[in-house]
């Protein structure tokens, strides 16, 4: 393959993956609305696009399978095959197979595939109605092939246009007048290598035109934008002392433009949550089928945009939560009918923005969680001591405990007790929070509150030993200036902060920073209360300098062993400051009570300069 071919192939694979996600969604809709001709039209178009373009870039084995797939779809479309669950399952299977093929192609463009088994299954399904197939539809198929051949070998847009226009009258793919355009649009959107403008507008520029950019290039851009913002603020400061009004005005305008550039470039990382949500449809369907339950998933706000990195880490937690809703939340149809609920259970998946945060909500109208049962289970498992009484909220949060499961048997779907633990860890890793509400008999609602982006966090800048550090604001619960009587010191416990009747271990940031911190009475310092760790604690800093949004910069590999710093931030004056991971920090402070320091390498050999 030439370099250009390789590029084409890579672009095609990327597009095809999106295409497949879309088609999966269509299949699932098909089951619930078998009479909707629009859906099958759409699937057919997608399969058709896939076939044509996979042949065009030389993936013949994919093309061959897509052809069989398309034949099957045609029968469904022409109502020669009824849309029954087995057919939908077969269609999904085909979809999976194609997905697998693309996964393999991603690593090896020359990969070959065994599709015979599935093809014979398709043939069997089709032969069930073989007598209905008349010559006319065979002819249609042939016509398709002819078109596809043209389609596949035409890089020239005008030819493609002709092809897609010809397609309409001859083969009846598109009874509605708009469909030829739609198809061209779909194709234009998904198959960039054909470079075709929508046929309707005769090669006008595509309004949805887009390019793909490598994420690392984007990050470099963001880096420089961040630097520009800092320089801008330095410049503003310097311009203040200047006498030139023109300079001040120009700097002010530059400030506006800089802000604009920053906003736009930060937005570049944002992608819609839709594809991730759509995957959940499949999970709900499969899980419900295994468990013989009837469940629909309703998606709300799937156009919400999320930082790409956040989205990558959201996939797994969402799968676990959706599965849990279907498995633990929704009851069997019999139970639901007995409880006077509709037979079909509903799971809602919502996404939205609220006050600079991303809110995800998963709710079901299932059985709800009984806190008493959870407490009892936890006692049985030895997680809680016998006779422990928990508040309702604390009891509900038991589901996040590692190894906790109310299921007696480990099934294919759940019961290992890993799921919700994973959810919690992932969400907290993203600096997010989970809220859980449940009403017995009515249902359960999980709310996940996440920062919109991981690249920027709200930070609190503090000082200790004349150095500045950044604490993620999401970890800071409150800050207090302790009075003398709030502090207790004893040889055994060290310093303890009394806060509204609560005793909190008190650490000093300065012990982390230097070996010989200056002794300073705590009542001249500020205590910051942290409650995100397993046990709450307070940490003493010299002063709070301020709060600001900061762009996280990774530390070099040479510092990766320093777990107590998750990164660095460049502050307003251009100097970097370390971002502190407080729980690790406290571990370190605990350790540093002993004089030995792990990180110090052997003393360098002493030599005197000659």
């Amino acid at each position, binding site marked *: 393959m030439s370099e250009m071919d390789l590029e084409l192939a890579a672009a095609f694979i990327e597009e095809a993956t999106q295409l497949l996600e879309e088609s999966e969604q269509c299949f699932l809709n098909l089951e619930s609305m078998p009479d909707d001709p629009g859906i099958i039209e759409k699937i057919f178009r997608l399969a058709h696009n896939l076939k044509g373009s996979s042949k065009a870039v030389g993936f013949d084995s994919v093309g061959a399978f897509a052809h069989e797939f398309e034949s099957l779809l045609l029968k469904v479309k022409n109502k020669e095959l009824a849309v029954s669950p087995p057919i939908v399952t077969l269609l999904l299977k085909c979809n999976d197979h194609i997905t697998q093929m693309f996964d393999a192609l991603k690593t090896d463009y020359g990969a070959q595939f065994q599709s015979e088994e599935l093809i014979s299954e398709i043939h069997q399904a089709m032969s069930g109605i073989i007598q209905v197939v008349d010559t006319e539809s065979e002819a249609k198929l042939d016509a398709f092939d002819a078109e596809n051949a043209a389609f596949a070998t035409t890089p020239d847009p005008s030819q493609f246009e002709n092809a897609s226009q010809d397609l309409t009258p001859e083969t009846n793919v598109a009874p509605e007048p708009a469909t030829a355009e739609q198809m061209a649009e779909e194709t234009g959107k998904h198959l960039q290598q054909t470079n075709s403008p929508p046929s309707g507008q005769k090669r006008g520029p595509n309004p949805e035109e887009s390019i793909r950019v490598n994420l690392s290039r984007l990050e470099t851009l963001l880096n420089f934008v961040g630097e520009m913002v800092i320089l801008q603020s330095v410049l503003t400061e310097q311009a203040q002392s200047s006498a030139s009004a023109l300079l001040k005005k120009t700097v002010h305008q530059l400030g506006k433009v800089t802000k604009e550039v920053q906003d736009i470039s930060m937005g570049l990382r944002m992608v819609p949550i839709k594809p991730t949500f759509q995957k959940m449809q499949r999970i709900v369907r499969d899980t419900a089928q295994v468990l013989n339950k009837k469940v629909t998933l309703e998606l709300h706000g799937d156009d919400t945009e999320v930082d790409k990195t956040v989205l990558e880490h959201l996939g797994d937690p969402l799968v676990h939560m959706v599965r849990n809703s279907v498995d633990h939340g929704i009851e069997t149809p019999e139970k639901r009918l007995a409880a006077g609920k509709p037979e079909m259970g509903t799971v809602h998946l919502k996404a939205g923005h609220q006050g600079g945060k991303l809110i995800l909500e998963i709710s079901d109208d299932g059985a709800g969680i009984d806190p008493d049962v959870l407490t009892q289970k936890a006692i049985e498992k030895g997680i809680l001591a016998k006779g422990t009484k928990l508040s309702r909220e604390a009891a509900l949060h038991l589901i996040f405990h590692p190894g906790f499961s109310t299921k007696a048997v480990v099934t294919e779907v759940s019961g290992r007790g890993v799921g919700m633990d994973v959810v919690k860890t992932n969400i907290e890793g993203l600096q997010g929070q989970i809220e859980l509400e449940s009403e017995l008999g009515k249902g359960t609602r999980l709310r996940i509150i996440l920062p919109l982006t991981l690249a920027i966090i709200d930070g609190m800048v503090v000082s200790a030993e004349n150095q500045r550090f950044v604490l993620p604001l999401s970890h800071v619960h409150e800050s207090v200036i302790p009075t003398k009587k709030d502090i207790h010191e004893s040889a055994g416990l060290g310093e303890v902060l009394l806060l509204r009747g609560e005793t909190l271990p008190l650490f000093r940031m300065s012990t982390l920073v230097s070996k010989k911190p200056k002794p300073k009475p705590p009542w001249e310092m500020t205590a910051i209360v942290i409650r995100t760790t397993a046990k709450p604690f307070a940490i003493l800093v010299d002063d709070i300098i301020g709060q600001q949004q900061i762009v996280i910069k990774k530390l070099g590999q*040479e510092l990766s062993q320093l777990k107590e710093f998750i990164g660095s931030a460049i502050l307003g004056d251009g100097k970097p400051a370390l971002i502190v991971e407080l729980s690790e920090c406290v571990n370190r402070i605990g350790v540093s009570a002993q004089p030995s320091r792990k990180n110090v390498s052997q003393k360098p*050999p002493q030599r005197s300069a000659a």
Partner: protein
Amino acid sequence: MSTIDNNRFLCFNLGVEEYAIPLLTVREVIAMPEVTPVPNTPAHFLGIMNLRGQVISIMDMRQKFGIKPSVNAETSVIICEFHPVCIGVVVDSINSVINPKPNEVAETPVVNSQIKMDFITGVFQKEAGLVIFLNIAKVLNVEDYQALNEQTAKAA
């Protein structure tokens, strides 16, 4: 082109001693910036700096070698790049770029010493004295960092 580049070295002073590193590992040379110290690191690890938006670690070679820094205003930082690690090295002064012929570089004289000498690749005689060629990646333990990262990546 590449043969010429491979044979060019950047000479710098640590105290009164002269050292050289391959020019290809040098990304740029900057004046001594403001440095934020990082707790719990060895003494020669000065801290981190902001290089046009990139946060880079700075090491002091003089401390690493136990050489008394000379007091002058020429102190510079050589930014060395070993993909993906990027480290700044503090030196007393930058001297010149030399292009020695292969036969001009002598092997490391064998010294009976307890100090590991494997980071010295050779010596070059100049009118003024000896120039010691360093394998800067070895001096900075870059391989260690890379290995460390691979391990943590595997564990994760």
